[in-house]
């Protein structure tokens, strides 16, 4: 049987509900990032750059855009005769008449034991599709083999203040883990789990099967890691140094995008040594008009800019009309900003149409009425395929979704903290 040293299982089924309307129709890993990328491009590119060429992508929540994006894996060279990328969705199992959702991170792997067995790996790499980073998994595997651990967990040093927001690994001087604490109130260490694990497959396989008996919602952090520690198995930490970002909230999403436009960003997309690959159907040149003003910005292929763009990130084929002003904003692919519109501190999802003369992001900073926990950083967000009629004014922390019309805006205004969500096509 063909042997495969390490295969990757990429958990891409999460909604990412704190990203609000951005993940209404798509799973978080399929959300755009850095202009032309989607979040999942980062772990997928890490895989192929690390020589991991068999990847199972586990999907569950709103998988359509993710499936279209990944396809048969051509952009990442994952269209292969042996291995390659496989989308693993929840399905009806033989012997039963109903299917089962993935109930937890480890349960999702448990339900795909057959896929892993078919590929016959020695090690399994568990990844999540939520993070922005570049990492050589082959170096982590080398350490895993050297220490002979049953599991190796990638950890990142965070500040002690941040530590209580993460799963924290308490380690011995040799890097082995003696305790795992999920979001501890009084953290003993500042080594946060990055949600990246390498398991020796037969060890993980046993643990998954045993734990499934007790926990139908089996989770790596809550169940599998503590179980293996209790059993006295050797768990090793792998120190990662470099840029790693969980873009979990509207504000952190906005900030980590904005970090890319610094003259010397901490996260460098422009080095050829560790390329990030993505699926873009065609790559025409961008055009900046004679009257255009663009500075401190990332402009993707096929954009047409006739107005002003400052401190902003534009996805593929965005159109910015004459006299329009876009500042401190993220505009995703194929969106049209009408002439004379003024957009400040907004996130506008793919394929939106913002009418001429619209003003967005003005007025007082009042948290969103319906979802104050999600929209409170002053950023106004438009979901994908949203239409904004000409000349209306929209405040801060607003949300609009769907084909909105003039009558949705009393006196032509959507004041700060208000939402319009139009259902249907």
């Amino acid at each position, binding site marked *: 049987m063909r042997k495969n040293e390490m295969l990757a299982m990429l958990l891409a089924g999460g909604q990412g509900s704190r990203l609000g309307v951005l993940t209404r129709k798509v799973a978080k890993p399929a959300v755009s990032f*850095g*202009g*032309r990328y989607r979040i999942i491009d980062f772990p997928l590119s890490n895989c192929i750059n690390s020589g991991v060429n068999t990847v199972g992508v586990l999907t569950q929540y709103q998988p359509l855009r993710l499936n279209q994006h990944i396809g048969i894996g*051509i*952009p990442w060279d994952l269209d292969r005769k042996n291995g390659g990328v496989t989308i693993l969705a929840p399905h009806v199992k033989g012997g039963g008449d109903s299917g089962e959702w993935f109930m937890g991170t480890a349960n999702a792997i448990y339900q795909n034991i057959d896929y892993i067995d078919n590929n016959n790996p020695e090690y399994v790499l568990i990844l999540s599709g939520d993070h922005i980073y570049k990492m050589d998994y082959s170096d982590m595997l080398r350490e895993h083999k050297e220490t002979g651990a049953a599991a190796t967990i990638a950890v990142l040093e965070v500040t002690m203040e941040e530590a209580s927001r993460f799963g924290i690994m308490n380690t011995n001087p040799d890097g082995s883990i003696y305790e795992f604490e999920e979001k501890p109130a009084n953290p003993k260490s500042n080594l946060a789990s990055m949600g990246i694990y390498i398991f020796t497959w037969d060890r993980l396989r046993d643990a998954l099967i045993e734990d499934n008996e007790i926990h139908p919602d089996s989770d790596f952090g809550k169940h599998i890691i503590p179980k293996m520690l209790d059993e006295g198995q050797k768990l090793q930490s792998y120190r990662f140094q470099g840029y790693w970002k969980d873009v979990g909230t509207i504000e952190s999403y906005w900030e980590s995008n904005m970090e890319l*436009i610094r*003259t010397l960003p901490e996260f460098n*997309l*422009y080095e050829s040594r560790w*390329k*990030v*690959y*993505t699926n*873009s*159907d*065609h*790559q*025409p*040149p*961008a*055009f*900046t*008009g*004679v*009257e*255009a*003003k*663009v*500075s*401190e*910005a*990332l*402009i*993707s*292929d*096929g954009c047409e800019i006739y107005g002003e*763009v400052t401190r902003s*990130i*534009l996805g593929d084929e965005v159109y910015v009309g004459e006299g329009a002003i876009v500042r401190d904003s993220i505009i995703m692919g194929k969106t049209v900003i009408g002439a004379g519109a003024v957009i400040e501190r907004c996130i506008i999802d793919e394929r939106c149409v913002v009418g001429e003369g619209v003003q967005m992001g003005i007025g007082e900073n009042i948290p969103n009425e319906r979802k104050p926990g999600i929209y409170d950083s002053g950023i106004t967000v438009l979901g994908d395929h949203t239409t904004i009629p000409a000349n209306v004014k929209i405040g801060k922390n607003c949300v609009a979704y769907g084909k909105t019309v003039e009558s949705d805006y009393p006196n032509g205004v959507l004041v700060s903290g208000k939402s319009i969500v139009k259902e249907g096509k």
Partner: protein
Amino acid sequence: MKAIGVILAGGNNKGRLGQLTENRAAAALPIASSYRAIDFVLSNMSNSGIGKVAVLTQYNSRSLRDHLTSSKWWDFGRKQGGLFVFTPYISSTESNWFRGTADSIYQNISYLLRSTEEYVVVTSGDAIYKIDYSKVINQHVESGADITVVYKKMEDNLRNFGIMEMNEAGRMIGFEEKPEQAKTNCASLGMYVISRTLLIDLLTQGVPEGKYDWVGDYICENKDTLQIYGYEFEGYWSTISTGIIAYYKTNMDFLKKEVRNPFINEYPYIETKAKDEPPAKYNVGADVRGSIVGSGTIFNGVVESSVIFRKVFVGEGASVKHSIIMEGTTIGKGCKIEYAILDKDVVVSDGKDVIGTLDYPVVLKKGTVI
């Protein structure tokens, strides 16, 4: 699939395109920030439903092969069909460079013999245009023509083209190559539709008799014996093979919306090899106007009315105007570049200037460091 494609990309345009084609085929010349010349004809073929295409190349063929390493970008990677790149080869009996366009097809005649499609679309690889060949094929079938030649009514420069004379029915009754005094303004665009079996018959008879040139020995020669018809093409068409000025102008044409749009904003699009560069980055001090820009480029200075390819770096205080800057070229701080064509991987050191004129743009060849 009704037709197969043959792209003639073997031409030696050395004299006319100077240093730009010293190490590359004309069909591999970079166009409009993101493309190579051959992308246009390959995309036209694919978009017209032609799934099997042969590229005949000999002059500096490496540059073209580099670009055509995979056929997937143009969707030719199919079990039925595919993209074939043919260069001259040595057999046990013969070793021949292609002696002409007809000879290059004849030397690869097994490609025609092994195909079963009824028609062949023959075209050159160094013109920039967008056409639906299936319309040409339809007219070819309806008119009952033996050969259909695509032409365009041109305003000027008729002396650079083959000029066709047609009767009222559209049948070609005269063809003059690069005439001093053109009788009509119908210029042949070097695109032909012919049935596969007729093409095989003509070449197997003609080439052994020393008839190596497709236009001279087959189109002109047979105008009375074969039914040769014209098909009028009305869109944008530009060839880059006639010289550096033509290459410069073709690129600059893409700064015009009406030229650019059909290729990049109207489906079906022109496809090219995926490069996976990050978005272009505009730093503080960037001021880019009236220009087209490829991905992965970083701007710190001023750019006006220029064609900027991928992974270009423009330093602080630099100014680039009316120029073509190819992939991977670095322009240092404070440089002034005007009316220049900087080939790939050129380095202009801080403070240096490169200045040409509209009539004589300066060309810096690949890898030049100044």
